[in-house]
């Protein structure tokens, strides 16, 4: 065990820091869940890729630098330190990308990964359906084979980024007689294909971060099947492992929030006096963010050593989502009566974007599998409790 960085890792950090300092936009981009903001974020992805920073842990031939996950974590730390824009293609680079590495054919990797890294293809996720939310195995959208194509019919919902994205990765039922986890297949579908209709869903903050996607006799070539026909659940669980366990929520994000929260406490001594528990809540958030970082380094070490992410990714998902929410709730309490003000309000002062962050954090225990589902998985698969 050695928790110090190597000389190479330090040099990598310095290089990342320098590039980010020179290239991160001076002004925050508009929200990626608006048309204009989406385009601006896509441009940023292109720029990142030109610098070779789109996804540092990928092999060079797919647009990466071929470095390991420790360096990816270092890059993420520098990324948040620099205040760089959110990753509009996170569904692609953090979720589908690693899944393609594991299950994709060489042709599929060459076809999709470089365009993903360059921001040419921005990806949406299409798993949930109106009647398959927490019960994801209840998927009913069908994709039946017709020659060298599948014909897709049905509906997906809560498809994040789908309003302006180019492609969507989905799970469809390919075996009409199958039930539950069997007979599902993982497919890649362009959102401009004939028969695809995207309907934006207005979120509680008024923006359109996700959408419903309808499929009406959409034809998907068989070379856009990822993994085996009927093996979609397994492929999806691999994606879910990355989503819950490692990549989607890198620790640097929460460490940045924790630092902001400590500064907020320092700047609001009257609030801390009014409610003496707030100081303790702040330090708990800070400790958790640090613990999450350490745990992520530990997971990365395990993966580098040949291990994998299993059901413990459910513990991670519970931890980061509840930590994020707790930190934002604490910030709301510190802001007191100013917490309801939008940053554009004249009386807002230094409220910043805590309200946005709070509302986004509220979604954390719901998306990527609700925390109730995660607790079931952890209890059954890690602790070995009997299935209900």
């Amino acid at each position, binding site marked *: 065990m050695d928790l110090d960085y190597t000389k190479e890792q330090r040099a990598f950090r310095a290089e990342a820091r320098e590039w980010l300092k020179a290239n991160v936009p001076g002004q925050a981009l508009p929200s990626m869940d608006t048309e204009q903001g989406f385009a601006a974020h896509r441009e940023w992805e292109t720029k990142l890729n030109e610098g070779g920073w789109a996804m540092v842990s990928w092999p060079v031939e797919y647009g990466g630098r071929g470095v390991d996950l420790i360096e990816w974590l270092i890059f993420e730390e520098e990324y948040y330190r620099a205040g760089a824009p959110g990753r509009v293609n996170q569904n692609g680079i953090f979720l589908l990308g690693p899944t393609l590495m594991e299950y994709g054919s060489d042709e599929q990797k060459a076809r999709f990964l470089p365009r993903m890294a360059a921001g040419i293809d921005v990806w949406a996720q299409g798993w949930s359906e109106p009647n398959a939310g927490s019960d994801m195995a209840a998927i009913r959208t069908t994709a039946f084979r017709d020659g060298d194509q599948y014909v897709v019919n049905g509906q997906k919902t809560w498809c994040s980024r789908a309003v302006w994205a180019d492609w969507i990765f989905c799970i469809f039922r390919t075996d009409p007689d199958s039930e539950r986890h069997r007979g599902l297949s993982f497919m890649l579908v362009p959102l401009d294909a004939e028969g695809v209709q995207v309907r934006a869903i207005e979120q509680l903050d008024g923006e359109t971060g996700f959408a419903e996607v309808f499929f009406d006799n959409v034809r998907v070539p068989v070379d856009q099947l990822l993994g085996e026909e009927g093996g979609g659940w397994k492929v999806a669980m691999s994606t879910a492992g990355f989503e819950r366990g490692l990549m989607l929520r890198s620790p640097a994000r929460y460490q940045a929030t924790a630092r902001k929260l400590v500064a907020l406490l320092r700047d609001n001594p009257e609030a801390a006096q009014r409610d003496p528990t707030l100081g303790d809540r702040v330090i708990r958030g800070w400790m958790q963010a640090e613990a999450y970082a*350490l*745990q992520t380094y530990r997971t990365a070490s395990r993966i580098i050593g040949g291990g994998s992410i299993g059901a413990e990714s459910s513990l991670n998902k519970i931890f980061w989502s509840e930590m994020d929410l707790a930190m934002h709730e604490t910030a709301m309490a510190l802001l007191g009566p100013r917490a309801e003000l939008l940053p554009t309000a004249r009386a807002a002062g230094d409220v910043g974007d805590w309200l946005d962050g709070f509302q986004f954090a509220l979604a954390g225990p719901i998306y990527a599998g609700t925390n109730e589902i995660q607790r079931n998985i952890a*209890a059954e698969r890690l602790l070995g409790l009997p299935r209900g």
Partner: protein
Amino acid sequence: MDFHFNEEQLMFRDSVRALLERDCTADVLRELWAGESGRSDGLWSGLAELGLTGLLLAEEHGGLGMAEVDLVLALEESGRACLPEPLVETVLAAAPLLETLAAGGGTPASVADKWLPLVAAGEARLAIEHPANPCVADAHVAELLLLLADDGSLHAVARAQVELTRQPCNDAARRLFTVDWKPGDDSLLAKAAGATRLLDAAFDRAAFGCAAQQLGIGQKLIDLAVDYAGQREQFGRAIGSFQAVKHHLATAQVAVEFARPVVYRAACSLATGHTDAGLHVSQAKAMADEAALLAARTSLQVHGGIGYTWEVDLHAWMKRAWALEMTWGGSAWHRGRLADAVLADIDNKPREGQLQLQGVN
């Protein structure tokens, strides 16, 4: 950057676990509770044979010259087994303190030369007084006691020269004492100024030791509840199949799992003499304490009425978790220490990912 334990460290953990599973069973624990000393010389020398008691000591003192990172998994095991022996007091707090002092020569060197090889060989236990703790633990089995005089100076006193008064406590395995004694020139190890520094370092090592034990205790409390919930049937099915029970236990497991890397980091920081080692220890103690307390509360609730009985073993681990939470600095104290440092530091440039590793920037 590598979070792996090496083969030797894992093998050492396995051999400690095997010994404790054989010689420190729940039946043994109950027998020891009933005994006058509550301790087992056989168990202590068994641990010494594995190298545990001399692990941190230099070879010249009969030790292995290893570090906290080599010890942390064994400490976890000692919590898992609810080991009643004074591992934390002897191996982490007192013995390394003596060794540090010995480097200066004089009386401390001769005390160290006499006692440390006996500690390493499992023939002596040490007790230590500290202002954080109202009583001295395991003074009755310690051949040598490190005690604080009214003027703050630190002394080494043989057991024959002190008078002990047992202070009954909740954990049937713990043995706490107040000590009557008279300081003399021949017992002096360090004057107040020097003693404070040594005691601070001993405090951090001991708090780390408790944190590591809390990991093992917390995991054991969850494991006990999982076993019980898999067997106990109500409404015609195992209660562990109910989501309410599953969710309680998953929540406790999250707490233990995320305290773990924090404790391991503290081990590394102590081993390498990191400038923030004390803060890393405080974070480890605070998080491991809370995880163990949550596991205790959860395990009792899952056991239901049967968990409230003397007959079921659960209370041994539960009471140990409660006791350790308050010894060598309570979790609230450790959070406060960290809070002061973090608030003082917030205007500084963030260090690398707040991991506060050595030599960054």
